[in-house]
């Protein structure tokens, strides 16, 4: 089995921690901006910020792959995953919207 774990110089540690944290934060920023624009709480122009966040996210993920010395194949998988993530807020928004539309037209029946 080909398992090989390359060495990572300690001078890269800080970058890895910061980039990892930013990946999650930009992932949230993308989902956040997207949802807020969809809800019309932000102007449409902010959709640029949403997709901008996603682009930064892709860049950060690529950089993290470089920092972690992943193989070219894994690097492709990572970027593929980011493309997958592109549709995630769409799916969640779509589901939540449909859900509320279906059940909340009638007066609340929760109690």
């Amino acid at each position: 089995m080909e398992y090989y774990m390359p060495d990572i110089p300690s001078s890269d540690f800080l970058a890895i921690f910061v980039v990892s944290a930013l990946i999650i934060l930009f992932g949230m920023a993308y989902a956040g901006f997207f949802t807020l624009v969809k809800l019309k709480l932000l102007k449409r122009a902010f959709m640029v910020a949403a997709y901008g966040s996603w682009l930064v996210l892709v860049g950060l993920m690529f950089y993290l792959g470089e920092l972690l010395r992943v193989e070219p194949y894994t690097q492709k998988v990572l970027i593929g995953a980011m493309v997958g993530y592109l549709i995630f807020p769409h799916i969640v928004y779509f589901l939540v919207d449909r859900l509320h539309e279906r059940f909340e037209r009638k007066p609340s029946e929760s109690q």
Partner: protein
Amino acid sequence: MQGNKLYQSQELAIKYFTVAIILFGAQLLFGLVAAIQYLYPDFLFNTLDFSIARMLHINALVVWLLYAMIGAVYWLLPDEAGIEVVGIKLANIAFYILTAAVAVVVLVYLFVQVGPGKESTIWFITEGREYIEAPRWADIGIVAVVLVFLYNVYATVMRGRQTGILTVLMADLIALAGLYLAGMFYTDNIAVDQYWWWWVVHLWVEATWEVYVAAVGGYILIKTLNANRKVVEMWLWIEVAMMFGSGILGLGHHYFWIGTPEYWWEIGALFSALEPVPLIGLFVHVLYDWGKERGKGNEIKNVPAFAWLTVETFGNFLGAGVWGFMHTLPQINLYTHGTQWPAAHGHLAFYGAYVAIMISAMYIAVQGKAGLERLKMTKAGWWAISLISVGVLLMTVSLTVAAYTQTMVERGMHGATWEGYFAAQSNMWFLQGIGWRLVTGLAVIVGYGFLVYDLITCPKHQPVEEGETAAAAA
């Protein structure tokens, strides 16, 4: 809810909550001792050594969360099912047995501390396995009490109304209880030992507890915001799919370095990278609700409970999501495993994911017991939530500074030896991080004081607005 006449089961829930909040205090107290010992190693040396303080710190945490979790179920069960809990007498007896057992275990921890290297120690003093140190006799007692609890839940739901929230809880609780069995055996093989130990620890905190929180969180949303039950319940299933889908195999991220095969590197990396996904899903949903409800003038029926639920959403995201992902990939985990990184991550994640929502559930009970239509936030309540949340967040930041220093010095520069370990522990940055951790810990303890005060007195100290009296019962 029927005025302020509670179900017997809800009275029992309040007993569980009371013990939980006392144990929360114990957790903070022993955490404080341990934090002081990091700076002043001679503090209580030979009286209450770090190992004992730390063990009590984490065991109190686990036990009080379990108490609060059981309490919350006894609270919502009759409310959801619409009938008194079946077998409530038995449930009351079980509560006293459990509490007596916990007291005995704690006394043994405190005064016997350690035993000789024999099986009898494992049975009667300590199992010495982090988080589940409780000796074997107590394990068996816990299983018996949990069986009573499960009987209560199942029998009640079968006779009463079976809601979606209860369905999820029923399935989740049986998994949660069953997993405890994975931690109840002894083996000489430490790798196998830790393999199953993680089944309990990980599959609790990163799978079954998460789903429990999603279910109880749904109930709290219905209670505080009058959220639509159908929406809540369907969303709950989506969350369950995402949480179990990522969390169960996310177990792999604990199997990188304990003598396990290498394929766990890939599995652990992939699924633990997916673990933030349900948190982002939750975040989008919360944002959606907030956006839609904004300006509708809908009143929040229980402001403190809702505020703590909000802390839960963000704390879970930051603690589990951001701080988790910072050190979860095997390439970097090789250098962070066994340092202060997991400590930093653990403090915020436990707080965000579990502590906050259990306090939220307690406020629901406070409101129910007082029979108030609406519960507002008092001054003390604000102090409690602010001090504790900011305290834990800054504590996490402090520990992160220490963790980073330790990774650099011990793992990066000194090759992970004893010498390297102590070089890192004496590093100025490390000590500063640990120092600030103590300061922020003190802030949390002050916040805890406010919290206890507020839980007891907030129904009486409701800020009165024009034309309404605080005692307006339903």
